[in-house]
C-alpha cells in the first residue's frame, strides 16, 4: 500500500522529527585534504551499513548517525589507522551485520566459494553438450 511509497520516500527525503539541534559533525560532509586517504575512507564508507536506514551504506545516507560515522571513519583514517582495523572495531560493536562486504568468517565462505562452485556445476552439466575433440 502506501507503506512502500512512504518507505521509498524516506530515502529520498530525511524525516526532520528525529534530528538533533546540532549541525553535522565536521568531517561528515567534508573530504580529507589528502586524496589517497579520502579514497581509502570513501571505499570503507561504501562498505559500512547505515544503522538507522533501510539498507544503505553510510557513504550516501543523509541520516545524522551516518554522518557521525563518516566523521569517525575520516578522523581515524587521517590519524593513520587502517580501514580493516576500523571495520573490525565496528564489527566488534555491531556484529558482521554492519559490513556490507561479507567478512572472512566461516559463515561467509559459501558466498565466496559460490561462483567457483556454480561454474563447476555448470561446466559439469554441459560436459556432454560440447564435443571437445574436433571431429575430422
Amino acid at each position: 500500500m502506501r507503506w512502500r511509497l512512504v518507505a521509498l520516500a524516506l530515502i529520498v527525503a530525511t524525516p526532520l522529527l528525529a534530528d538533533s539541534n546540532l549541525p553535522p559533525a565536521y568531517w561528515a560532509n567534508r573530504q580529507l585534504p589528502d586524496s589517497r586517504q579520502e579514497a581509502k575512507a570513501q571505499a570503507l564508507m561504501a562498505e559500512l551499513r547505515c544503522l538507522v536506514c533501510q539498507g544503505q551504506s553510510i557513504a550516501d545516507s543523509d541520516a545524522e548517525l551516518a554522518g557521525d560515522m563518516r566523521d569517525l571513519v575520516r578522523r581515524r583514517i587521517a590519524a593513520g589507522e587502517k580501514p580493516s582495523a576500523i571495520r573490525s572495531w565496528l564489527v566488534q560493536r555491531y556484529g558482521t551485520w554492519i559490513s556490507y562486504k561479507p567478512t572472512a568468517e566461516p559463515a561467509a565462505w559459501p558466498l565466496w566459494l559460490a561462483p567457483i562452485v556454480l561454474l563447476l556445476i555448470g561446466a559439469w552439466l554441459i560436459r556432454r553438450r560440447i564435443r571437445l575433440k574436433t571431429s575430422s
Partner: protein
Amino acid sequence: MNRALRFAPLAVLLLIIVALVWRLATPVDTTVHSKLEGKPVPVFALAAALPGKPTVSSADLATGHPRLVNVFASWCVPCISEVKVLQSLKESGVAIDGIDIRDRPVDLANFLGRNGDPYQRIGSDPQSGLQIALGSSGVPESFIVDGKGIIRYQHIGAITQSDVPMILSKLERAR
C-alpha cells in the same frame, strides 16, 4: 538427463520455500543490538554536559556497584516519558548516569528542568562517538554495567513502567 538432475531444481525450490516460510513466521527484527554484552565498557572520558554536573568516564563505571547508563537526548521524544520512569528507579536506589547525544547545554538544561533530573552524572557526546563505541544505534537506550565495568545488558528503546521489575532484577544479578 538422469533422475537426480531432473529433480534437483525441485529440491532447491523446497529449500527456498522453507526458508521463506520461516522468514514469514519470524518477522525481521530490525533493531541492531550491541555486541558488547559481556564485555568491558570501552575506555572513555566525556566532557561535562552541564556546568556544575559531574561528567561520566569509564573509571566511574567500575566502582564495585552496578550502574544504569542511559543514552538519551533532549530532542528525543520517547526520552521525555522515560525520565519519569528513571526517576522512580532512582528513588529505588538505582545509580543512573546519562550520556547526552548531540545536545547543547541550554537544551539539556531545559529538558531536565521540564522533566526532572534522575542522573548522578551526565556526559556530553556531541558526535555520537561514545554511542558508536558502545554499539548503540539510537536513543533512548540503556546499559546495565556491573561493578567491574562489564556491560551486562542492553535495553533498546525507552524503559517503561512495565520494564522496571526486569531492570531491577538484572541490576540485582549484576552485583
